[in-house]
């Protein structure tokens, strides 16, 4: 026993010690901050609950985007920087359909049908963008050094952003309100009286649904098996008769469709679309995907929710107790700090990586 410990101790490097010190410092700050704020009793239990709920809602959006991100990464091992723009293209285009339907009165008479149409158009546009992106920009670069497709993706991100800005508008467009999704539902009216907005629930439920759908698709269909095979080993898959190009296209299509759907939810929840809307959520979604273990579908979901909640609760819980002014401004800093900590101590994310092995 002692022998073993001594053996382990010998392999602790200076780096590890430095990392532990950093982690310990951060943890102390977190604990002290939380302790202060909790003992002070500035927020009621109900308010903490509110933080968590809004965090879950924001997290669901991250999760929806992260699912597409993680699929593409899982198969190509490439950061598709332009995924945020795929996410933007759909709802931005579908806005015009929504506006048209609103003017024709369909949004008022058959809101859910109208919403479905908008959703379908959005998914279609995002899918087309994602697939053509793969076909025109990424496919010729397969096998190139990994920085090359990354730069291409960055270029594509700019290109798409400014294309859509030029086509539609550099300003914001406001999505119409959907009557059935307005207002709140009350849970446990007698005991807790938890009042949650319908929109939040819709987003949460649909992200779970999408996860299940994608998971089933990857796990149980023939194409899904092909995707997993390609993710595992492209050459071997090709030898087994899998059409690699086609499979990768399908992956992009599925990721694009998911992004298109996510985009409409985003637009409904925050009531606005513009050409820049994909950039930061895209960055966050990628963070979420890494957090959950990149290439792992349930991981992306979990990572997204976790990130959302952390961003929402973190500033009040950790920072305010330390006397930080305007703590909410630093929520992204908290998110990234946590990401750094996570990657140092559990580099493969919450659930571990690889599309092929786990999901």
């Amino acid at each position: 026993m002692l022998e073993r410990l001594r053996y382990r101790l010998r392999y602790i490097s200076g780096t590890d010690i430095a990392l532990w010190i950093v982690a310990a410092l951060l943890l102390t700050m977190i604990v002290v901050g939380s302790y202060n704020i909790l003992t002070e009793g500035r927020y009621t239990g109900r308010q903490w609950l509110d933080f968590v709920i809004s965090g879950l809602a924001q997290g669901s959006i991250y999760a929806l985007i992260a699912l597409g991100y993680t699929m593409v990464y899982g198969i190509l091992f490439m950061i598709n920087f332009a995924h945020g723009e795929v996410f933007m293209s759909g709802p931005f285009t579908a806005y015009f359909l929504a506006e048209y339907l609103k003017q024709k009165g369909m949004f008022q008479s058959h809101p859910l049908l109208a919403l479905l149409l908008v959703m379908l158009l959005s998914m279609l546009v995002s899918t087309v963008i994602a697939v053509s992106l793969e076909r025109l920009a990424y496919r010729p670069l397969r096998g190139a050094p990994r920085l090359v497709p990354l730069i291409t993706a960055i270029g594509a991100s700019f290109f798409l952003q400014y294309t859509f800005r030029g086509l539609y508008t550099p300003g914001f467009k406001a999505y119409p309100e959907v009557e059935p999704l307005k207002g709140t539902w009350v849970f446990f009216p007698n005991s807790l009286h938890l009042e949650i907005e319908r929109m939040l629930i819709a987003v949460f439920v649909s992200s779970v649904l999408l996860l299940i759908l994608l998971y089933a698709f990857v796990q149980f269909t023939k194409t899904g098996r092909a995707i997993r095979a390609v993710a595992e080993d492209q050459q071997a898959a090709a030898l087994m008769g899998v059409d690699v190009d086609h499979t990768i296209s399908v992956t992009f299509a599925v990721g694009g469709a998911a992004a298109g759907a996510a985009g409409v939810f985003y637009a409904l929840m925050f009531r606005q679309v513009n050409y820049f809307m994909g950039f930061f959520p895209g960055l966050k979604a990628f963070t979420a995907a890494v957090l959950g273990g990149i290439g792992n579908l349930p991981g992306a979901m979990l990572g997204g929710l976790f990130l959302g909640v952390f961003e929402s609760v973190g500033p009040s819980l950790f920072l305010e107790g330390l006397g930080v002014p305007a703590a909410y401004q630093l929520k992204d800093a908290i998110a990234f700090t946590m990401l750094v900590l996570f990657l140092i101590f559990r580099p493969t994310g919450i659930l571990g990586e690889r599309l092929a092995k786990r999901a």
Partner: protein
Amino acid sequence: MKKRWFVFMALVLAAVAVGLVACKPKPKFECTDPKGCVEIKPGEPIRVAAALVYSGGAASYGIDSKRGIEIAIDDLGGELLGHPIELVAEDTQCNPEGGQAVAQKLAADKTIVGVIGTTCSSAAKNAAPILSEAGIVMISPSNTAPYLTDPATRAPFYFRTAHNDKVQGKVAAEFAYNELGVRKAATIHDGSVYAEQLAAVFAEVFQQLGGEVVSQEAINVGDTDMRPVLTTIAAKGPDIIYFPIFNPEGPLIAAQSKEVEGLEDVKLMGADGLFSKEFIEVAGEAAVGVYLSSPDFTAFNPERYEEFIKKHEEKYGEKPISAFHAHAYDAMMMLAEAIKKAAVVMEDGTIYIPRTALRDAVAATKDFQGVTGNLTCDANGDCADPHIAVYQITSATEWDTTDPNKSPVKVWPK
């Protein structure tokens, strides 16, 4: 080889000869202006630069302003004193290096008469001294930082049609304390120079009046989920939340504040960055009851703004996309007016614009009937109409600034 040389020399000689023939002697005009004069020969354009933001997250403000300038040029008939007006667009971005690069570029171009810009105060900080050094008048449609017109730091050729934060923040605080009678305030800014300064001025004045600022929070541009920050504020129990930020974060705060416990009855107040129809489009019914400070539209002919909007929709196929189009329109009109006053017109149609004289003409602007009010430039370069009113939104669907009794309703001064 010999032949090649011969061809070359012949061609060069021909080119030089043609070049010399093309040069004509200049007409005589004594320019005594210390900063020099712009000479515009017949048929040559009067060149005005639109040094605004066209890329990145703040682009919609810049493009919005640029459209205002373009409409102003259309209203002038595209020409001034018989010369076409040419608008040179330059992207200052929203940072000092962009402002400096553009200012250097414009300063080196001797044909530039005046500059409308910049969008961001941080860019103006660097651009204003360089342009002043070169003797180019600069009128900003959207800079609000007090620094720029502070007598100690002001660049002499700098003017603006947007409101100094000090003025607007003070009005907001006085309105809140005296008129609404609230005593506990919270502020939210978005990390922009405009919002941070306004929030700070508001807090300072509010405290001077005797009120208490219970919470000073901040969000980031691009944030969408405001519930956490609103929950934080709710815990402090303010009577009013002052959020002088922009679209779309502003309406999101209004919309989501209704969903946060403890904020149902809190009053909300924003500034002119939010004063546009987009606010109610995004905020929906939550917009009702929100106070917004803005130039007083009843102080002048209100139909002009509606007319402006009509032209805008016709030209660009959409409504104005942000808050500073009208300020830009006024800036261009003011500049045109000053050029008319300062320019020396020769017989052959050539005009000379002495730079210092142009600056003095802009500085002398008084009771200029603009779309944003009656503009009068003070000694420090602040030209915005000092009459700031507070409006209250009373309808989630209607937006009419021509009638003081329709939403938004003017509630102060009475």
